[in-house]
């Protein structure tokens, strides 16, 4: 697995400033500068993901802050297993879904997924902010057949199980499984240049 993916501001040309390993070392040796680099590189991405899942700006803000606190106090990232970005997104996604499940534990899956109909609303300024990677990912997702994309988003942003998605979409469980397989295959192909 990659151990030296570049850390650069999103929206800027990808320039290798510091490797994941170096950043991890700085973080573990409690150098405050590491937090700044980490935030400037991934803060918007982490916030956007938490906001999309939770649908609440304050809650998303709290969650991202919580994740950074965790990183600062006991960072468990292993650079031999995944890129730092993937690790951070995993952390944000799993914690956001935990909060979502906790908040909605008494709601049915259908109600839980209701806010997934569209991404969290953005201000005009927010909507204007984009970069090459985001454009490429959005295009790759847009190129998926609608049902495949919907199934993927229900799982990724809504935390629904395959069974719940099958019920929601009114398709057999096996169909949902193949949606996952096909959508990942297409995304992997479309985004291969971004996978270091």
């Amino acid at each position, binding site marked *: 697995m990659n151990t030296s993916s570049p850390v650069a501001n999103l929206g800027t040309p990808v320039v290798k400033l510091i490797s994941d390993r170096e950043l991890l070392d700085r973080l573990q040796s409690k150098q405050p500068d590491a*937090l700044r680099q980490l935030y400037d590189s991934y803060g918007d991405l982490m916030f956007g993901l938490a906001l999309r899942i939770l649908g609440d700006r304050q809650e998303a803000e709290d969650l991202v*802050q919580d994740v950074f*606190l965790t990183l600062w106090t006991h960072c468990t990232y292993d650079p031999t297993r*995944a890129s730092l970005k*993937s690790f951070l997104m995993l952390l944000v996604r799993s914690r956001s879904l935990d909060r979502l499940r906790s908040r909605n534990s008494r709601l049915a899956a259908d109600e839980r997924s209701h806010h997934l109909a569209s991404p969290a609303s953005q201000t005009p300024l927010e909507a204007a902010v984009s970069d090459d990677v985001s454009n490429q990912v959005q295009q790759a997702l847009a190129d998926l057949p609608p049902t495949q994309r919907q199934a993927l988003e229900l799982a990724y942003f809504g935390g629904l199980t395959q069974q719940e998605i099958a019920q929601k979409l009114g398709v057999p469980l096996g169909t949902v499984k193949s949606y*996952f*397989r096909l959508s990942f295959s297409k995304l992997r192909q479309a985004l291969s240049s971004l996978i270091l």
Partner: protein
Amino acid sequence: MSDTPSHNLNDEYLEELLTGYILNALSCADKVKFESYMEADPTLIKRLEELQEVMGLIAHSSQTPAPPQLREKVLNIPQRSALPMPIATPQYPIVPAPPVSVVQPKRSRLSWQKVAAGMAAALAVVVGTNFFLLDQQLTKIEAELTAAEGNLSEEDYTFDLKSSQMGSNAVAKVYVDIDENMVMIGVQNLPPLPPGEAYHLWGFTADQQKILCGRFNTDRAGQFVDRLSVPPGSYDSPVKFMRISREPIVPSSDPTKRVLVMTSES
């Protein structure tokens, strides 16, 4: 297609399990099945890691500028985490005051979500210095909560765990909230495990259920503090005691690979 047990382990089927697993969307049965495949074929772990990179990229589709104040809060974490050394300077308060304001006194039971953020911050700060302080801090928080609510809910439990191994000074504190399906854990002096292994936190209920509350690893300093979510409906009777075991991440049928390291049993 893949719903029947008579399928062959073809690549399509494995890919379906892989993508379902990485999204954490598999049924329990499929998850167990896939983990047994992983145990038999470690190359699947590599494939999972590759899919993880795709997962990381999907987040770009929701990229949103974070509010400016968030950056400031994050950059202030080192300052907020800095504590006076209580042993060297006993004349000062040992720990910051517990987050009393997060308690909702009118509720009939503790609201884990409301107190968790404050507790997490306090625990994270304290555990980095002295575990005695963690214990003290939790005790103080519990006292505050008790004072505010009359007494702790029947659905909340605190456990002190000690090492079951000679010569180890590992200690842990676990706070369980059944209603919110969450536990908070703080551990100190427990050596980090190599890749492929994890500490497993188990709860044992009055009706002899054994519940996996979460898996974790400690950092280089032997510490770990976090909240872990427990699947809803995992248990419905009081937790009697808790244990921490050292086990492979991929379940193994070899009992020698499962070692009890800590327990709350006296």
